[in-house]
């Protein structure tokens, strides 16, 4: 099967069109919008799947929209890192399924079609971000997903949600500006916005503006990725958003910062014009700090979603550390963790959403004993918890192993130490959670009367939980998938 590049365009066009039409479809009956968006997402998923299979067989390929060649046209480029679209589609589909019952209760009926539209838009933004080949479109898609993200956080219409969304908006806007500035500098230096082009032309550029540009890009993307100490927007936004949105935000949207970083690396290493050593050191430390601080904050949370939100910061720390190590193992681990963390975190957020939906309670104290009432959901959450801590043989372990191996490989055993023990720290609060669910006496006996979540919620959660295990046991599949991309990336550095 040879690649058929126009599929790439379709990948964006389908959800984008779908998003726009959603409010129309759902105008009379809200449930139609749910069905419609599910259909759209399924179609997108099929396209994504075909593309991923293609890239696995033949490697990266690109499609020039409208036949305009670089540097003027819009180029869509699909490589192994772009395979994240598979996860995006998967989570998107599951989140939409999950939302069916959830949204009906969480928000006013007339808002529901807009909710689905925003969700689709957000997903479109991410898909576009992952496959675009030029810097300006990168920015555009980033804005699409950011703006829809702000709106999604606020969608419930509560006061506190608006506050959270506002905080998110401010931080997001600042970071977007910083990134835009950097893109401007790069354009000024090279006269091109196409990433491949920029990479080629960057050779003789003066050092100072370059440093500013890459520094600004990193800073911007770190805000998006919520690395400590740029994370302040995240906990509120993720905790207050509706649970399916939290899953998307925490699982995917923060990864935009990571994929952005990967693109920046592709330019930087590819051109050979920029010495990333200093930046890498910063990233490693940022990663280590994020792991520890995220865990530290999470320990003191009682609100289950707040806890999960902080744990995202720790996990982003893993990935950033892996990137900063710039060794092949570390890079592979970090890239795969982009996938795995998305799955794990979605498991946890959707599971937590199901608990909150059924019980109406969201603190650990109140949820004590819920494991007996909702065994399947809580079992899924437990699998997620074990996975995110990196206990073998789950998905989290594969990445932890590779990133730690990468740290030793890069000659920084200290970071392996920080990673391994940071993970322990994370475990402390997950064990609190599992304790509360299973082993603590219920504060309110009524919680034992709660029934298991409806199928539309339970099935996505279970699928994700089993994926947590499968990605662990079959850990070699994503690893070997991503490896060529990492080798290509690190080739200018003299191999991994």
């Amino acid at each position: 099967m040879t690649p058929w590049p126009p599929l790439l365009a379709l990948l964006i066009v389908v959800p984008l069109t779908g998003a726009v039409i959603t409010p129309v479809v759902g105008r009379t009956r809200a449930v139609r919008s749910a069905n419609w968006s599910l259909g759209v997402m399924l179609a997108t998923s099929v396209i994504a799947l075909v593309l991923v299979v293609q890239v696995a067989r033949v490697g990266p390929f690109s499609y020039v929209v409208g036949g305009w060649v670089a540097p003027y046209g819009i180029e869509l480029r699909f490589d192994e890192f772009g395979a994240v679209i598979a996860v995006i589609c998967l989570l998107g589909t599951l989140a939409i399924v999950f939302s069916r019952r959830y949204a009906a209760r969480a928000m006013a009926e007339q808002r529901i079609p807009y909710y689905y539209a925003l969700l689709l838009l957000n997903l479109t933004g991410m898909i576009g971000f992952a496959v675009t080949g030029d810097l300006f479109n990168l920015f555009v898609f980033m804005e699409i997903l950011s703006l829809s993200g702000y709106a999604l956080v606020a969608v419930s219409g509560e006061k506190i949600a608006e506050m959270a969304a506002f905080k998110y908006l401010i931080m997001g806007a600042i970071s977007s500006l910083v990134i835009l500035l950097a893109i401007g500098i790069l354009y000024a230096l090279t006269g091109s916005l196409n990433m491949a082009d920029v990479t080629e032309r960057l050779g003789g550029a003066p050092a100072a503006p370059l440093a500013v540009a890459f520094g600004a890009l990193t800073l911007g993307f770190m805000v998006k990725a919520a690395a400590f100490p740029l994370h302040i927007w995240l906990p509120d936004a993720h905790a207050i958003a509706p649970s399916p949105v939290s899953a998307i935000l925490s699982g995917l949207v923060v990864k935009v910062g990571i994929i952005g970083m990967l693109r920046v690396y592709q330019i930087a290493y590819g051109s050979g014009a920029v010495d990333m050593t200093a930046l890498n050191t910063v990233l490693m430390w940022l990663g280590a700090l994020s792991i520890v601080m995220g865990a530290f904050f999470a320990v003191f949370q009682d609100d289950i979603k707040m806890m999960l939100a902080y744990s995202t910061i720790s996990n982003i720390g893993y990935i950033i550390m892996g990137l900063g190590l710039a060794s092949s193992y570390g890079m592979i681990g970090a890239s795969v963790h982009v996938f795995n963390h998305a799955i794990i975190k979605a498991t946890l957020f959707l599971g937590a959403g199901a608990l909150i939906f059924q019980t109406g309670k969201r603190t650990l104290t109140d949820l004590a004993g819920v494991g007996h009432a909702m065994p399947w959901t809580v079992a899924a959450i437990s699998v997620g918890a074990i996975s995110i801590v990196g206990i073998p043989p789950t998905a989290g372990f594969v990445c932890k192993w590779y990133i730690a191996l990468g740290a030793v490989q890069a000659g920084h055993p200290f970071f392996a130490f920080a990673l391994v023990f940071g993970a322990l720290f994370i475990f402390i609060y997950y064990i609190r959670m599992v304790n509360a669910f299973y082993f603590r006496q219920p504060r309110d006996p009524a919680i034992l009367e709660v029934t298991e979540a409806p199928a539309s919620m339970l099935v996505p959660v279970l699928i994700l939980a089993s994926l947590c295990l499968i990605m662990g046991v079959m850990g070699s599949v994503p690893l070997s998938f991503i490896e060529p991309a990492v080798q290509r990336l690190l080739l200018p550095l003299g191999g991994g």
Partner: protein
Amino acid sequence: MEVVDARAALAPAISLVCAALVFASADNTFWRRFFSIAAALAKLVIVMSMLPGSLRGVVYTFKLVEFTEGVGLAFRADALGMFFSVVSSTLWLITTIYAIGYMEREPNRRRFFGFFALCVSTTVGVAFAENLLTMFLFYESLTICTYPLVIHDETPEAMKAGRKYLIYTLTGGAFVLLGSIVTYQLAGTMTLSQPGILPLEAGRTTLTMLFVALIAGFGVKAAIMPLHGWLPSAMVAPTPVSALLHAVAVVKVGAFGILRTIYNIFGVALLRELGVCTWLAALAAFTILAASVVAIFQDNLKRRLAFSTISQLSYIVLGAALLTPLAATAAIVHIANQAFAKITMFFVAGSIQRTTGKTTVHELAGIGFRMPYTMAAFTVAALSFIGVPLFAGFVTKWYLSLGALEAGEWWYALVMLASALLNAAYWLPVVYTAFFKTEPTAEVEVHEAHWTMLGPTLVCAVFVIILGATVSVPGMPFALASAAVKFVFGM
């Protein structure tokens, strides 16, 4: 001779299946019991069916998944692993029967038996692990699977103990992970099938630090002082769990890890060169004595047992650290010896607690007349710990003392003697109280525990004698231990 044989993977898997079935059997007592016992039997049969081959020198291997080259889940039943798995699967069957009796009226039995099976699955996984990664995987899983068992009672103390347990063991696990990573980086492989894989060229400092990391990691579970803190607290768990912690699984896995580290990762020659084992031996000797001294002052029977375990486990560590064939034999054999004797004691403690509600030593006055068979079993175990000839413990003491002399470090032979005396100092008073002090209430009736509890206790006690008296009968585990030692020392 290596043979690819699925049994090496089947042995851990069977308990996994059992766990699933137990969870699936909902609250049906019959099926839960049926699955528990059937799986225990099935595993014993599988392991035993490998035993004759293993005694002939056959090594069974099975590769399950491969992540990247050389890194994956693989099983390999060599002599050392077989020894450990024979012990653990025998004890699993016995403990399961006991647990059925003991947990009769406890809540949450499904959870209990499910995780119980998982624990044993992971234990055999550790025993048969072909590489460090597989071993780590099962090692960590064991930690997780034990947790619900430790906090089974869900009382505040249980929760606290559980937390302590997790913090200790997970920290240990983190060190093991760190050590595994560094090992892979240095040696390019993580296999446990060689007598040592690390090259001396890696540098003394690096190797020493790696050694410390691995030993500290496994040492937490093996409860080497000062890493032993979790063990006495974990005594709040139900007795079959304590048995599991102390005899079948957890602590033994730690000790086994140390054996693997010393024999299969570093190798005897390298360690002799490095000289780090001197320190380990000293630490083990300290633990042996200090834990015994602490044990003397414990009034709670199970706490006394806990400190005794700490002391006894360091026999294994000491044996391994001496780096001589005789001491190594002692270390390996002690896995079985300590297991059977300790489990006997735990069964007794549990039977007493269930039958009379007594938990402290001073309450036990005259219990020997109430529960004569139970306390007779206890006495057998106590004599074994003291190292009275013909009992299991003597074999260890004998070989370990010889090993110490072989290593030219005669003072460890003195440590063994001192430890034997200390063991007497805290076990004999129990026997004494039980048999020679009269109960406050006049009328004494024989009132033994239910047969599901008494039977396993007696069987274990008989094993203690068999292990001590028939060491060299062909087919006894001792032959496996010798084979393992021969391999490790290249004899």
